[in-house]
């Protein structure tokens, strides 16, 4: 915003919409909203540089208030950035151009739990774990267990196409969402059809799932629930190398078993992460497999899983390491275990079909470890979200001593990402499985989509012609 007077005018108009207590322009609060978990702003901050804060933060309590804020933003042509838990790693809520942060956490009510249809309808600002605890009381589960569960919100789950540790059976957020209410950029409040399965033309729902606040603000979400399983069992195996583990996972999925999780760690990950966090020392590729449901089915499924793993010389490590992993599955993401500054790192995950995934893994490992040898770059990966047709490689690069100069650090970071991403694309992969795009990967989207990018940009231009919604994200051209 250009002048303090204009900011005061807009702030007062916002107070008229949501009330005095639900608007803030205090420096400390604006600072807290100038970042998420994306590394680059953190590097900037770490090197004593200022970040672009939002001009104002607003805490709406209804779709009607959100609508009025959108109308105000359209009138003044200022950015609106919907904000959930702020747990994203892609810079999705970083206010690159300032503007209004719409923190949705005051819209956190559960509106209905339908125990016949097994659905929950809630406002988007509800904390993921709080939602899970609430439905658990009814004997139900969202079965969405992302590492960010303690901090992320329901709105964030669907806005970023998130995935949880049991996605292999229960699907990603996009598979769980049934219906949404969305406030469009111009303030119009719309609802998608009551159920997602129909033959009434292309689905409207998927347009907004994963839109990261660039096409509108999500104000209500209906999600599928599942019954709490009677039992949930885990078992661990150790393979000589990751290829055997990949083949074991492929066989499970293509034989249409329904394990709730398959987590396969490459040798580097097994050595660094598994040893450091779980305290298990091993050489080879470590795999945890899980199954849940009624006791009889689980016993049968675990038997089939065991047969597949041992056919491929997987050493049975028993249930204890697997159960231990489940119990401590989020420990990896707490300090001091989590990757964070002063290290430079990135999760360059890629999804691909089974025929391509090992090639992608090998090529990226080479690109990172050989291409950035001078920086001592290391590469580690695990395969944690499996589909009937393929799998996601959750791979990371790590540089323990990155440049101190922020511009040099950014240059190195961009170079690594560019090479890693293009390696994935060249080998038939899709750049991202569940972290979203933000501005971290936005610059690579036109390249990934090719000619189809015009269609994507067309959605944006049609739904947000003024370009007020979360500008600078998802690779969309800036119109403001």
């Amino acid at each position, binding site marked *: 915003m250009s002048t303090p007077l204009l900011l005061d005018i807009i702030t007062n108009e916002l107070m008229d919409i949501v009330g005095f207590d639900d608007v*803030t322009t*205090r*420096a*400390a*609060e604006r*600072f*807290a*909203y100038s*970042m998420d*978990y994306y590394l680059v702003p*953190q590097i900037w*901050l770490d090197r*004593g540089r*200022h970040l672009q804060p939002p001009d104002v*933060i607003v*805490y709406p309590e209804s779709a009607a208030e959100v609508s009025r804020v959108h109308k105000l933003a359209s009138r003044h042509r200022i950015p609106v950035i919907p*904000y959930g*838990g*702020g*747990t994203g790693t892609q810079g999705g809520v970083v206010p690159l151009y300032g503007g209004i942060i719409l*923190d949705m*956490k*005051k819209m*956190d009510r559960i509106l209905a739990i339908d125990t016949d249809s097994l659905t929950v309808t809630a406002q988007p*600002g509800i*904390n993921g*774990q*709080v939602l899970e*605890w609430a439905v658990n009381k009814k004997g139900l589960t969202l079965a969405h267990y992302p590492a*960010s*569960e*303690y*901090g992320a919100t329901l709105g964030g789950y669907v806005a970023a196409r998130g995935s949880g540790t049991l996605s292999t059976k229960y699907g990603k957020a996009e598979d769980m969402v049934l219906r949404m209410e969305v406030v469009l950029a111009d303030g119009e409040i719309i609802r998608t059809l009551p159920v997602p399965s129909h033959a009434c033309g292309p689905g409207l729902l998927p347009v907004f799932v994963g839109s990261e606040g660039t096409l509108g603000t999500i104000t209500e979400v209906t999600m599928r629930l599942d019954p709490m399983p009677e039992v949930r069992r885990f078992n661990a195996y150790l393979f000589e190398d990751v290829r055997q583990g990949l083949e074991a996972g492929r066989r499970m999925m293509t034989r249409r078993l329904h394990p709730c999780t398959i987590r396969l760690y490459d040798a580097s990950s097994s050595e660094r992460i598994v040893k450091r966090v779980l305290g298990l020392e091993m050489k080879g590729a470590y795999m945890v497999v899980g199954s849940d449901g009624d006791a009889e089915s689980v016993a049968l499924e675990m038997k089939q899983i065991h047969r597949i793993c041992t056919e491929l010389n997987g050493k049975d490590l028993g249930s204890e390491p697997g159960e231990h992993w489940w119990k401590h599955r*989020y*420990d990896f*993401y*707490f*300090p*001091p*275990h*989590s990757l*964070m*500054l002063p290290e430079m790192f990135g999760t360059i995950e890629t999804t691909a079909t089974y025929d391509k995934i090992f090639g992608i893994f090998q090529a990226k490992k080479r690109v990172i470890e050989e291409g950035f040898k001078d920086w001592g770059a290391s590469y580690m990966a695990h395969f944690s979200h499996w589909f009937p047709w393929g799998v996601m490689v959750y791979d990371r690069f790590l540089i323990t001593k990155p440049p101190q100069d922020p511009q040099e650090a950014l240059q190195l970071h961009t170079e690594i990402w560019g090479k890693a991403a293009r390696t994935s694309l060249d080998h038939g992969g899709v750049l991202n499985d569940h972290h979203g795009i933000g501005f971290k990967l936005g610059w690579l989207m036109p390249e990934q989509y090719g000619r189809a990018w015009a269609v994507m940009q067309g959605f944006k231009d049609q739904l947000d012609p003024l370009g007020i919604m979360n500008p600078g994200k998802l690779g969309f051209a800036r119109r403001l």
Partner: protein
Amino acid sequence: MFLTEKEREETIWACRFCMMCHVADRVGQVVRRESYTPRGRGAIIYAVDKGLLPADEGVADILYTSLNDRLIREWCVGHYDHEELVIGERARLFSRGQAPAEVARFCEALRNNPVRGQNAETILKQAGVNVRAGAEVLLFCGHSAREFRPETLVAAGRLFHAAKIPFSVLPEEPTSGWALYQLGDFEGARAVSRRLAEAIVGSGARSIVVLDADAYRMLMGRTGRFGGDLKGLPVQHILRAAADWLRSGTLRVPVKLDYEATYHDPCVLARDFEDLESPRFILQSILSRPITEMATSGKLANCCGAGGMLAVHRPDISEKVACMRLEEAREAGAAILVTGCPRCDVTLEGAVASGACPGLRVANLVDLLAEAVC
């Protein structure tokens, strides 16, 4: 400051990069602003250190809107001490005269009159409970009981009588200094701690039993760190003492009470001293049916709302936190919410009085134990 410079830096580093405790942070759940979460505070403290943000009244508001109940530290896999970090930052603000006005006023009043509240000896005598000056055991009552929960103080006295243990109280019992410590008035805490230690040592007691959980934490360590020398006198919380009396047969329960109860673990007893067993043993001894645990209990119990002296700066948030705790008790199906600290009692009863969870009774475990044995 109670964190070393290295610990402080590590804690800031950990908190500013982490959101894993958002779900355990009651203030964040009430305020629902990123800036009021442990991550927000970590980032803000970092930015102030680096000169990227002025330490203005907005920063002070955020740092004084915190529970410091140590649940964050308990929840955190790395056990970073976010609460002590916040107290240290409050102390910096306080020493520069940047604490919120109501905090400064509260601390000044407490410094000027550390012996506030009613006289413990008078309360006990009026209830027919004799104290013996110069007894080996000193009962440290705490301000909350003397001012707001005299019945709990009387119940404690009756337990001593039932156990046939003579005890004394300080005729002019000063505050433990907990409130000043929590609010960052370290100078005030130092002065009070010295005065308190002198009064206790001067009483001739050979050991101290503490009714108040916050005072217990002070006497178990912070009093000494603030310069109050207790000359090595042993200190025990009353629930641990009472559990021992029950175990040894010093106290006997003639008829068990028939209450549907749940137990609220005070943060100090559960998290600092890890005594989950004493209160549960007492409850098991005096109730005819087992207690129902709330959704959060033990070391991960949610706060009653009194943590961090939050009510001095934001009584509205403190009350909402208390209401959330009452709701947990209601969901557990309890008719009585039993606590182990008079400060918790006062805070939770305040929330009941405001209309939250009507019909739910808040009782101190000392009250129930006295009801069962006396």
